[in-house]
């Protein structure tokens, strides 16, 4: 019995943390959010060089053959570092291909996704849930419009949700039109993508499983973001003085921060369990994914607000880093469907 991270897992998290600190420091994040680029290619490449794209892919295609837990631990550090680029899409797309029975697609895409030579993103559509997808397929051609596709202009391949709940792979090209949207989270730019009878490879992977992967990775990202906002708040409360003492000594603020910790730290094991249950194929895996996603979405938003409030004026400025995670929290809550949606799914899955 073991329910804590191995030393190796800790070391991998530290490596990613270090890579992000080097390749995506505060100044670059600010450049990104103030600029027009869709994502920061340098830090993305650095993450890919660490093997994040291939974590869950078979070794024969250049992957590490690890489980969702390891991918979630990476996504958590990604959230902590405000990773730009479609990390969730890259991992989920790779797995969708790997879990399909199309060897050509595997050979064509998996090595490139593992190394990061190709960028993949999710184009699920409508209300996120597989049963709501509405891109239509006629033979090997797909048509339809999908909002909120991250990194769409730089993606090489889209994992598209089809009406009927199936998945397809569509390569960027002349049949794919990208219309950028303004994104509230400027570290994760997005577009509406229109498929005009675009050539597609239909995948046989279980779309429900792939959706669960996305939910759990998003929960892990939110956990990392919430931890970051908490850490910034703790550091600020220790440093900043008012009325001649560090503000963290004032009981009211101290207790508000303690309540923040109470939201973040226990949620960690919830994310671990969801990933563990997925990896082991446990009966409660799907519910665990839904509950973890809903819970973490709420926690991140709550922590984001509490962190800004605890900082006072400085936390409300664009230049202070916290604004980046605050915006990520709002964005994350909606991405893949809001918490109420996933709670209702969890209720249904329990046959309530």
């Amino acid at each position, binding site marked *: 019995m073991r329910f804590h991270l191995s030393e190796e897992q800790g070391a991998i998290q530290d490596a990613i943390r270090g890579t992000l600190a080097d390749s995506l420091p505060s100044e670059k994040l600010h450049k990104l959010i103030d600029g027009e680029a869709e994502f920061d290619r340098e830090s993305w490449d650095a993450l890919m060089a660490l093997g994040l794209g291939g974590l869950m892919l078979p070794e024969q295609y250049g992957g590490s053959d690890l489980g969702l837990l390891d991918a979630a631990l990476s996504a958590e550090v990604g959230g902590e570092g405000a990773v730009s680029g479609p990390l969730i899409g890259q991992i989920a797309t790779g797995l969708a291909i790997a879990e399909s029975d199309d060897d050509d697609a595997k050979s064509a895409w998996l090595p490139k996704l593992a190394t990061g030579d190709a960028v993949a993103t999710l184009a699920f559509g409508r209300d996120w849930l597989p049963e709501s997808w509405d891109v239509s397929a006629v033979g090997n051609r797909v048509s339809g419009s999908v909002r909120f596709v991250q990194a769409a202009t730089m993606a090489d391949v889209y994992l598209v949700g089809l009406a009927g709940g199936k998945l397809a792979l569509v390569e960027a090209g002349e049949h794919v039109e990208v219309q950028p949207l303004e994104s509230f989270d400027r570290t994760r730019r997005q577009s509406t993508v229109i498929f005009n009878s675009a050539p597609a490879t239909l995948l046989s992977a279980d779309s429900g499983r792939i959706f669960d992967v996305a939910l759990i990775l998003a929960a892990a990202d939110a956990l990392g973001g919430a931890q970051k906002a908490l850490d910034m708040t703790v550091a600020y409360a220790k440093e900043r003085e008012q009325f001649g003492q560090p503000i963290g000594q004032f009981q009211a603020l101290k207790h508000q921060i303690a309540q923040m910790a109470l939201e973040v730290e226990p949620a960690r094991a919830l994310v671990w369990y969801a990933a563990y249950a997925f990896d082991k194929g446990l009966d409660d895996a799907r519910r665990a994914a839904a509950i973890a996603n809903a819970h973490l979405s709420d926690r991140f938003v709550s922590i984001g607000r509490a962190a800004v409030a605890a900082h006072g004026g400085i*936390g409300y400025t664009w230049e202070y880093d916290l604004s980046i995670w605050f915006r990520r929290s709002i964005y994350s809550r909606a991405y893949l469907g809001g918490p109420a949606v996933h709670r209702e799914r969890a209720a249904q899955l329990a046959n309530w």
Partner: protein
Amino acid sequence: MDLSYGEENESYRKDVREFLKVAWNPASVEKPAMKAYIAGFREKATGKGYLYRAIPREFGGSQQPVDVLKAQVIREEFARARAPMEVGGNGMNMVVPTLLERGTQEQKEQFIRKTMSGEYIWGQGYSEPGSGSDLASVRTKAVLDGDKWVINGQKIWTSQGMDATHMFMLARTEADAPKHAGITYLLLSLDHPGVTRQPIKQITGGATFCEFFFEDVTTPVAWQIGDRGDGWNVSKTTLKHERASIGSADMLGHQFAQLVKLAKETQRNGQPAIKDPLVRDALVRIEGWVLAHRYSSYRLFSHAAAGDPPPSVGLMMKLLLTEIGHDIALTAEDMIGDEAMLEPAPPGTRGRGPEKWLDQIMGSLGNSIAGGTTNIQRNIIGERGLGLPRDPAMGA
């Protein structure tokens, strides 16, 4: 109890309405002439006693006896006619009351009319980097040089800062005096080469505040309000005015109405969101708070109208507003769903969709920071409202 205004005030309302019908016809005015037209209108309205009621005639006001009911009638009728009220901002809210209470005759003559006309726009120079709620921790220095104060330092969180022509400021003038006793209240012109200003971009992406840097900026000793070293007390008068001016039941009521509208217009599971039991429950829950706030405003208003001291609920209105705003924001966030992923176009822009609620979501946070943080307000409610013992760590 009686929420009607009474016969006398309803007859007064008729007068105001009559006046507006005659005096306020902006449709008849060409755009370039509008500014002058408004100035003329304000002058006429002041002549009738509708505007600048608290300001003596000798400084350009209409010097009316305090009558909160009549004042309310005027506000309602002007709002109805979409006619301009007084020039707003820090000048009227903070500088003029301070001048009236603590200024010399010369100062009053020099500043009040020009503030009323909008010629002088005032930035507030209280907060400094690192001061937070501890406003007495002023580090900006002013040193006397003949008949001038020479100012060096930095101020932050100045609202309307980019437009300001002048500033009212707390400066440390007595290095050796105790914290609160070494501060002087100064006015100064911002038209000085030693003044640098810089907008502070907010989490919203907009910039409504400024940061100011002062390098050997001078202001005449004659522009000092109150005694040297007494600035903390002078500023306290002012702050009271600010606190009283923040809450607004009408604004909140409007916000709530917008939330209901959003719930009616948002589709969820194939029907308007307002048919969803979760949404209905959340809305009425919030409405309970909104109405508690509204009727408490009536109560405060009623006390003011009767000249009675305000009840303790007056200390709670700002925090209440903040917390209700927070609830509205979270409920809206739930309702707008995916649109929360879109950057809202700036206010006033056409085609703003449900994502415009993100402005409210961020604004509700800003509220908890502006005008004293919520923790300071809880201290005030606990100590001033309930008489709980004061925390010595919070300073004098």
